[in-house]
C-alpha cells in the first residue's frame, strides 16, 4: 500500500517518456547541409511551420527585447497582454497619452507578430489621440507618432504587407485629407527629422518634388513596398486584387489634386497628372481576380463586349439570326418603341457612334429583362447543333460574368472617372483653363469685379485696361466648357464641385454688380445636370432662365413666338 504513490510517479514518468518520442518526431527541425541544401525536411510541425511561414525567423527579425519580454512573462503572456490592453485603455481614458504610447510599445514587444495590434493601436495614436489636441502642431506630432509606431512593426511582420499598407494609408490620408491638411502638408515639407526617421525604409529623395517633399508620394512609396513584398518576395496577399493594386496609383493622383489646391497650376502639376494617368492605365491593364475566380482587367470592357458580340453572332449563325430578333421583339413588347426596334435591326457596322452606344444600352436593357435569353436561343438549335450551342452559351455566360465584374469593380474604384480626370488634367488645355480660373480668382480676391477701362470721349470708344473678375471668370468658364463637353464624366465628382464653387462666386459678383445671369452661360449644362441630381447649388437652371424670359416677355407685352432671340434684346434694354 505504501508503494502506491511511488508506483504512480513511475507511471507518470513512463507516460511522459512515451509521449516525448512521437513529440520529438513531430517537432524534428529541418537540417541543411554545408551548401544550404535541405538534407531533411524535419517533422510535421516543422514542415507546417515552414509552409505557412510561421517560424519566428520567417515571421520577423528576432528582437532580443521582445524575446526577453516574452520570457519574462513566464508563460503568462496572455495575462500580461490582457493587463497591458486594460492599462492602455485606462491611459487613453485618462488622456495620459505618453503613458499610453509606452504601454503600447510594451504590448507590441509581447505580441510583435500580431498585425492587428499594430494597426489598431497606430490608428489609435494617429487618429484618436491626435484629434484630442487643440494645437495642430501637437496633432501633427501625434500623427507622426502613430506612423513611427507602425513602422516599428515592419521588421516584426516582414512578410505581411498590411503593415506597410497601413503606413501608406495613414501617411496619405492623415497628412493629405484631414481638416488640417494644409498645415500638416506644410509641416511635412519642412520636417527633416521625420524624413530621417523614415529614411531606413524610404529614401527621402524618392518623394522629393520641385515643390518639396510630398506626403502623398511618400504614401506611394509605402504601397510600392507592399507591391514588392507580394510580387517579388511572394508574400501572401491579404486584400482583393482590385483594392491591393488600386492603392499605389491613387497616391500620385492625390498628389496632383493636393498640389492643385496648394500651388498655382503649372507644368509640374501637369506632369504629376501625366504620371498618375500612366499609373492608372497600368492598373486598368493589370490582370485582376476576384473571389469567384473571375479574371479580368478594368480596361478590358470593350474587348469583353466585342467577344460577347462575336459569340452571340456565332450562336445566331448556328440557330438562325431570326430567332434572336423574334425573341427580342417578344421581350421588347411594350418596352421598345419603333426607333429602338429600327436600331436593333440595323447591322452594327452601319451605325453611327452615337447610335452604336444607344444600341449597346438597349441590348443591355433587354438582356436585363431576361438574363437567360442566350440559353433560350441555344435551346432552339437543332439537336445536332445543340452541344455546340451550349458550349457557346457557356462562353457567353463567362464573358457576361466578366463584364458584370468589370462594371461593378470599375464603379467601386470610380475607374472611368479618374481615368478621364487624369488624362484631362495632363492636357495643356486643362492647365490653361486652371490658370484662367486662378487668374480670375486672384482678381476676385482683390474685389475688382468689373472691367477697368479708358474712355475716349472723342472717339467714344472704350479700351479695357484691366479685366475685372466677372469677365475673367466668364473667359475661364468658356475654356472649361469644351473640356467638360468632350469628357462628360467630369460633370460629376470633384472637378464639378470645384467649378460650381467658382460659379457661385461669379453669381455673387453679378448680384453685387447688379448684372443679370447671362442666357448663354458656358457651364449652364453643369448647373442643369447637378440640379437634376438633386444638388441644391442655388444657381439658375435653364428652365428657370426660360421662365424668367417668358415672364419678362409677358410683362413687356411681346409675343414670344414672334421673335425667338428677344431674350438678349430684352436684357440689353
Amino acid at each position, binding site marked *: 500500500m505504501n508503494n502506491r504513490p511511488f508506483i504512480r510517479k513511475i507511471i507518470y514518468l513512463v507516460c511522459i517518456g512515451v509521449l516525448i518520442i512521437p513529440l520529438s518526431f513531430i517537432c524534428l527541425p529541418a537540417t541543411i547541409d554545408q551548401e544550404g541544401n535541405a538534407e531533411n525536411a524535419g517533422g510535421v510541425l516543422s514542415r507546417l511551420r515552414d509552409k505557412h511561414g510561421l517560424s519566428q525567423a520567417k515571421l520577423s527579425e528576432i528582437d*532580443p*527585447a521582445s524575446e*526577453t*519580454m516574452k520570457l519574462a512573462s513566464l508563460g503568462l503572456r496572455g495575462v500580461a497582454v490582457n493587463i497591458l490592453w*486594460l492599462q492602455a485603455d485606462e491611459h487613453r*481614458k*485618462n*488622456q*495620459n*497619452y*505618453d*503613458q499610453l*504610447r*509606452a504601454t503600447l*510599445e*510594451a504590448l507590441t*514587444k509581447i505580441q510583435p507578430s500580431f498585425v492587428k495590434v499594430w494597426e489598431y493601436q497606430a490608428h489609435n495614436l494617429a487618429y484618436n489621440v491626435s484629434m*484630442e*489636441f*487643440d*494645437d*495642430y*502642431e*501637437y496633432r501633427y*506630432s501625434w500623427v507622426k507618432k502613430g506612423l513611427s509606431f507602425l513602422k516599428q512593426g515592419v521588421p516584426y511582420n516582414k512578410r505581411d504587407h498590411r503593415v506597410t499598407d497601413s503606413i501608406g494609408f495613414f501617411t496619405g490620408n492623415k497628412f493629405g485629407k484631414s*481638416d*488640417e491638411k494644409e*498645415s500638416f502638408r*506644410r*509641416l511635412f*515639407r*519642412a*520636417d*527633416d*527629422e521625420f524624413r*530621417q526617421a523614415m529614411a531606413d525604409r524610404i529614401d527621402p529623395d524618392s518623394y522629393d518634388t520641385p515643390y518639396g517633399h510630398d506626403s502623398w508620394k511618400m504614401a506611394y512609396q509605402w504601397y510600392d513596398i507592399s507591391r514588392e513584398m507580394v510580387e517579388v518576395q511572394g508574400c501572401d496577399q491579404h486584400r482583393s486584387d482590385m483594392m491591393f493594386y488600386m492603392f499605389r496609383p491613387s497616391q500620385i493622383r492625390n498628389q496632383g489634386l493636393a498640389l492643385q489646391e496648394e500651388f498655382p497650376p503649372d507644368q509640374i502639376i501637369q506632369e504629376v497628372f501625366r504620371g498618375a494617368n500612366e499609373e492608372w492605365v497600368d492598373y486598368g491593364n493589370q490582370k485582376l481576380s476576384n473571389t469567384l475566380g473571375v479574371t479580368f482587367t478594368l480596361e478590358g470592357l470593350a474587348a469583353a463586349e466585342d467577344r460577347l458580340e462575336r459569340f452571340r453572332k456565332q450562336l445566331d449563325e448556328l440557330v438562325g439570326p431570326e430567332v434572336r430578333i423574334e425573341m427580342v421583339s417578344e421581350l421588347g413588347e411594350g418596352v421598345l418603341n419603333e426607333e429602338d426596334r429600327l436600331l436593333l435591326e440595323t447591322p452594327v457596322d452601319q451605325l453611327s457612334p452615337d447610335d452604336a452606344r444607344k444600341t449597346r444600352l438597349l441590348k443591355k436593357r433587354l438582356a436585363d429583362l431576361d438574363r437567360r435569353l442566350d440559353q433560350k436561343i441555344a435551346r432552339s438549335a437543332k439537336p445536332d447543333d445543340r452541344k455546340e450551342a451550349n458550349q457557346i452559351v457557356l462562353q457567353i455566360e463567362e464573358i457576361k460574368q466578366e463584364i458584370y465584374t468589370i462594371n461593378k469593380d470599375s464603379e467601386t474604384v470610380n475607374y472611368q472617372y479618374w481615368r478621364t480626370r487624369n488624362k484631362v488634367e495632363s492636357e495643356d488645355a486643362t492647365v490653361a483653363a486652371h490658370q484662367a480660373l486662378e487668374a480670375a480668382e486672384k482678381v476676385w480676391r482683390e474685389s475688382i469685379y468689373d472691367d477697368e477701362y479708358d474712355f475716349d470721349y472723342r472717339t467714344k470708344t472704350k479700351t479695357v485696361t484691366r479685366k475685372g473678375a466677372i469677365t475673367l471668370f466668364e473667359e475661364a468658364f468658356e475654356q472649361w466648357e469644351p473640356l467638360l463637353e468632350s469628357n462628360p464624366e467630369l460633370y460629376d465628382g470633384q472637378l464639378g464641385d470645384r467649378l460650381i464653387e467658382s460659379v457661385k462666386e461669379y453669381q455673387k459678383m453679378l448680384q453685387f454688380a447688379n448684372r443679370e445671369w447671362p442666357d448663354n452661360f458656358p457651364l449652364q449644362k453643369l448647373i442643369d445636370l447637378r440640379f437634376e441630381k438633386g444638388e441644391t447649388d442655388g444657381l439658375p437652371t435653364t428652365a428657370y432662365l426660360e421662365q424668367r424670359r417668358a415672364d419678362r416677355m409677358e410683362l413687356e407685352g411681346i409675343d414670344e413666338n414672334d421673335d425667338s432671340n428677344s431674350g438678349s434684346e430684352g436684357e440689353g434694354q
Partner: protein
Amino acid sequence: MIFENQDFATYLEWLTSNLLQFGIVVAAAIVLGVFVGYVVSALKHGPFEAFYVVAQVIGQSVPDFLKTSPRRTMAIARLAVKEALRRKVILVTFAIFAVTLLFGGWFLNSSSDHPDQIYVNFVLFGTQLLVLLMGMLISSFSLPDDIKNKTIYTVVTKPVRATEVVLGRILGFGALGTALLLLMAVISYLFVWRGLSHDHLLEGNAQTQSIAEFIPVTGNSRSAKTGQRVSENAILENQTNTVAGHFHLVEVISDIRSPNDPEPINKENIVRQTTLPDGRIEYQRVVVQSADGHTHRVTVDGEGDSASIQLGSAVGYFRARVPIYAESLTFFDRQGQEKARGISVGKESNYRGYIDGGDYRTRSSLSKAEFTYEGFTPSRFPRLASGEITVVPLELTLAVFRTYKGDIEKRVTAGLQFESVGQDERFVSDMIDFETNEFAVQTLPIPRKLVGKVFSVDGELLREGEYDLFDDYAANGQLKLVLKCRDYNQYLGVARGDVYFRSGDHPYALNFFKGYAGIWCQMMIIISLGVALSTFLSAPITMLGTLVVIIIGFFSDFIQGMTSPDHAGGGPIESAIRVVTQQNMVYDMDTGVATTVIKFIDGGLIQMLNATTYMAPDFSTLNFSDFLTYGYAIDGQRVAIALTLTVIFCLGLTIVGYFALKTREIAK
C-alpha cells in the same frame, strides 16, 4: 493629463473625518475577534470552559502588551534579519532589480514627449512590485517554517512574550526591507538621472557654436527650418542636433524694455544689448524652446556675432512643484447660475467640468469657473519675497473642446480675472486673455500690479487704476480667480487641481525619496500581514493570502469599477452569457425568470467581490508615484496620512497575530 491622485484634505481633516469610521472598525474587530475566539474555544473546551479560556487570554494580553520588552523585541528582530538573510530572498530581489535596471533601457522610449514620466514610472513600479513580493516571501515562510522544524521551541521556551515574537519579526523584516528599499531608491535615482541627462550642440559649425549660425525669422511667425510656430518676439532661429530622439528650436528673442523697467534676471543668455533711438533698451536673448518636457540652459560668452553659445544640461525634468490649490471651485452656467459641476462634453473621464464661450446669439456668456484661494500672502512665495522673481507664477493644465473647427492654427483663447473676496470694497481686475496650451503645464507670469476697477458694496464704480495682487485684491488673504472661455462655441475643461499658484519647488531628490516612503508604507503593511497570517496559517496559504491582498490593493479601482451599478454587461454570469451569445453589453437581457435568477445570483457575487476590496488597504492613498510622474511636491500632510495608516495597520495586524499565536498550542 489627468492627475486624479490629489487629495486636498489636510491631515487633521482626514483624521477627524476617519476617526469615527476607525472607531467602528476597531469595535467591530474586537467583537468579532472575541466571538471567533469563543467559538473556536467552545469547540475545544465546551461552551462554559470556553468563556473562561477567552477571558483568561484577554486577561493575559494586557500584561503581555504592557510589558513587551524592547530589548527582547529587538533580539527577535535581529534573529528575523539573520533568518531572512540566510534565505537569500533579499539577494535574489536585489539581483532581479539590478538586472531589470540593466536591461530596462531596452524598453524605455527616450524619444517620448515626457521621457521623465516613463523613467520614473518604470523604476517606481518595478521597485514597488519587487519590494512587495519580497515582503510577502520573507514574512510568509518565517513562522510556519519555525513551527514545522520545531525551531520555534528554542524561542518560546525562553521568557518571550507572543507580542515580542510577532512585533520582533515585523520590525526585523521591516528593517531589512527598509535597507533594501533605500538602496533601490538611490540606484533608481541615479538610473533616472543618467537616463535623462543629455547635451545638444547647435546645428552648423560644431566648433564655433556662434550666433552667426542663426537665420532670420520670416514674417509669418513660422520656423523656416521646421515649419512650426516660433515665439512672438523671435528674430533669429536655429535648431540643435537630434539627441535622445528630439531636437530643440533655439531662438534669439528681442526683449525691449524701458529704462525704468527692471533688467532681465538671467543675464547669461544675453547676446546683444542695444539702446534704441527712443531710449528703450533691447536685450537680444538666446532661448531654447521646450521639447519633450525640458529645455536647456544657455550660456553666452562674448557679445554679438562673435559670441559663442553653450547649451547646458537638460532643465525641467526633475521638478517638485509646490502648488497652492484653490480651496473651492464653483461653476456657473451660461445664464450665470451656480452649478455643482461644469458641462459634460461627453468625455469618458468626468475629472473635468467644462465652461462654454457662448455663441453668436449669446455673445456675453456668463459661463465661468471661480477658484477661491485662502491664505494668499506673499510669504507663501519664497522666490517672490527674496526678489528672485517679480511675478506670481500661475500654472494651468486646461482641456479644450471644440464644437467647430474654427481657425485650426489658432489655439482656443481663455480669459482670467482676479477679484477680492469679502472686503468692503470689491477689486476686479481687467481680463487677461491668453492662448490655451492643452495637455501641457502652462505657466502664466501674473504681475503683482494689476489694472482693475474698485466697486462699492452696492456695485458703484469707485475708482480705476493699478492695484497690488496681495495688498489690494487679496488684502484679507482671500482671492478669487475667474476663468472664462473667450471663443464662441468652444469649451474649456477644468478641475480644481488644474489652476494653481506655484509657490516654489522642493528639492527633487527629497521628493523622490518621499515617493519611496509610500512604497515603504505598503511594504510594512504587507510584512505585517504576512507575519500575522503566518501565526495561524501554513506558509503557502499565508503567501497566497498576502498575494491576494497585494492584487486587490493594486486592482481595487478596477474591481470596484466592475461592481458599480452602472457597469455595462452585468455580473459574472450575465457577462459569461453575453460573451457566449455575443450580445451587446448595453443591450438589456430578455426579461423572464431566468434573467431574474441570474441577476439575483450576480448581485450576491458582486457584493462578495466588492467586499474583497475592503480586505486590502487602499494602496492608492499610499502611492505617490503620480506626484513624481507629473513633477509635483509630495506634501508633508500626505506623508503623515500614509504613515498614520501604516502604523494603524501594523499595530492592528500585530494584535491579530498575537491572539492567533496565543490560541495555538505552541504559544501556551
